């Protein structure tokens, strides 16, 4: 069951969730969509008190989904598998399609290195092109700060990035940065992400490359 509690003042999201918990069968998950962190905290506080498991998904800082799960058996099995697979793959091994699992390329600027700006831009363009020619590709490329200018309209690297994406490389750009440079509407390749995801991807990476 889905509850859209966006725009509702606390404690209404919690009250709506409580009603749903009463009316829904136990095996059904209840998804509550809210637009602020405090509402998320109030919902998870309720879940802890009621000894219900929950999951929080944040798309961005105004968009959260709290899923309340009363029947946890399927999740326990799934998590055990994941944990096992993480423990097994300690080394960065290329997959069949050439992707290096756990390898993250972080592009924090539209320039490579310090020095002349124009040279920096040329170097970055060359670096991204070189990626397309490598045998082993990073699993994810994260673009933030002025790096966001590379995935948007007017970038010289769009073709290279699109090619990488076709080969299975995940391309993500920081949403806050796009917004700051007013480029949100001009994103040409990959998807928009947020600081949760960026932090998590970097924390979970086995290898980080930063040009």
């Amino acid at each position: 069951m889905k509850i859209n509690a966006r725009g509702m003042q606390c404690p209404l999201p919690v009250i709506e969730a409580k009603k749903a918990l009463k009316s829904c069968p136990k095996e059904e998950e209840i998804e509550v969509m809210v637009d602020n962190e405090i509402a998320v905290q109030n919902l998870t506080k309720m879940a802890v008190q009621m000894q219900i498991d929950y999951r929080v998904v944040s798309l961005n800082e105004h968009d959260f989904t709290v899923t309340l799960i009363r029947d946890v058996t399927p999740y326990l099995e799934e998590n055990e598998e994941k944990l096992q697979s993480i423990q097994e793959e300690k080394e960065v091994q290329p997959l069949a399609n050439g992707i290096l699992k756990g390898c993250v390329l972080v592009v924090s600027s539209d320039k490579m290195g310090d020095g002349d700006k124009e040279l920096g831009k040329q170097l970055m363009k060359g670096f991204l092109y070189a990626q397309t020619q490598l045998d082993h590709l990073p699993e994810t490329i994260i673009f933030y700060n002025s790096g966001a200018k590379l995935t948007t309209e007017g970038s010289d690297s769009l073709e290279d990035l699109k090619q990488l994406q076709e080969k299975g490389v995940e391309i993500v750009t920081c949403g806050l940065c796009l917004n700051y440079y007013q480029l949100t509407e001009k994103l040409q390749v990959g998807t928009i992400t947020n600081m949760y995801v960026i932090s998590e991807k970097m924390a979970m990476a086995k290898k980080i490359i930063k040009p």
Partner: protein
Amino acid sequence: MEVAFGRIGSVLVKILEIIKLLPNKKKGCYAMEKEQYKIFCSSGGCAAKLGPKILGKLLHQIPKVEDDNLLIGFDHSDDAAVYRLTDDIAMVQTLDFFPPMVEDPYLFGQIAATNALSDIYAMGGQVKTALNIVCFPENMDTNILGQILLGGSKKVQEAGGVLVGGHSISDKEIKYGLSVTGIVHPDKIYANHTVKTGDMLLLTKPLGVGIVTTANRLGEASKEAMDMAVKSMTTLNKYVAEILQKYTVHGCTDVTGFGFLGHLKEMLGEEHSATIYSSQVPYIKESYHYAEEFFLTGAGQRNRNHVSDCVEFKNIPFPMEEILFDPQTSGGLLISMSKEDITNAYEEIKLLGLPCGIVGEITEKKEKSIYVI
């Protein structure tokens, strides 16, 4: 997209703690006493306060001006400013205003004024003059404003003060409060942070006002609970302050938007800790049950985020925790005094008729600021 799991998946995913203070779009209304005029309650009294976290950060950026006569400024998050005029007289200044938390305009006026006047009493002062602060929609029935102002003036009068003017602007939603000036002897100021090890703490009004008004907004509060909340919110702290004149007060503050624990933490500063006896804390009894039903404000959660790192709860049930974090509108005084004084003061204050209690003691600084047992 980040996925965070609860108990089941904590091994896999660390929940990244990102606390943001987002503006709350608040809707809804509270039940009312009289039928003729109703006001729309867009948010709940002191629950509409900005979070202490964001405020502390901003205040640090404002340059301080040195003036020997400024006895209390905003460096200790005190209730009001105190400025020495002569050796015997210091001026106490404060202002407070907020959107309605009850539908009855006359009652709202009384509550807002009681709340604003309270800061003078929390400093040990006497009320002298007050100015109205009004935000009111241009196209709304001005009789409503009349009722609000009448309620406010009644309380100023009861406080022994004179209403001398005010300022009003047109705004989308109603807000009302007072700017109050009082006087105090410069040697008899009750600062909030001058508590002493060995002191006991006295709380003069019941907690849970925020939870009860929230439950009321959802049509879930009993008449008894709401009556108690209204009685508490409209009772001037003046009468307690008069009793306190006979005793030596080491520290005093009024408990409002940051909740009991938030205001207590401000009193303790960096030099002291406190042990709170949860069984002695006065609260509106229905609020315990309403907290169990999760009639909880966003402001209460912000208070929790702000102080929970400094608090250790020892087997305290969840509803009691919530009551201790609950934002209060026009709450009571929290007073720190010696063991000898406090028993007598408590006996006198009890006779004023509101639930009150000796709720804890001040200790030397320990690892945590506050232990709730």
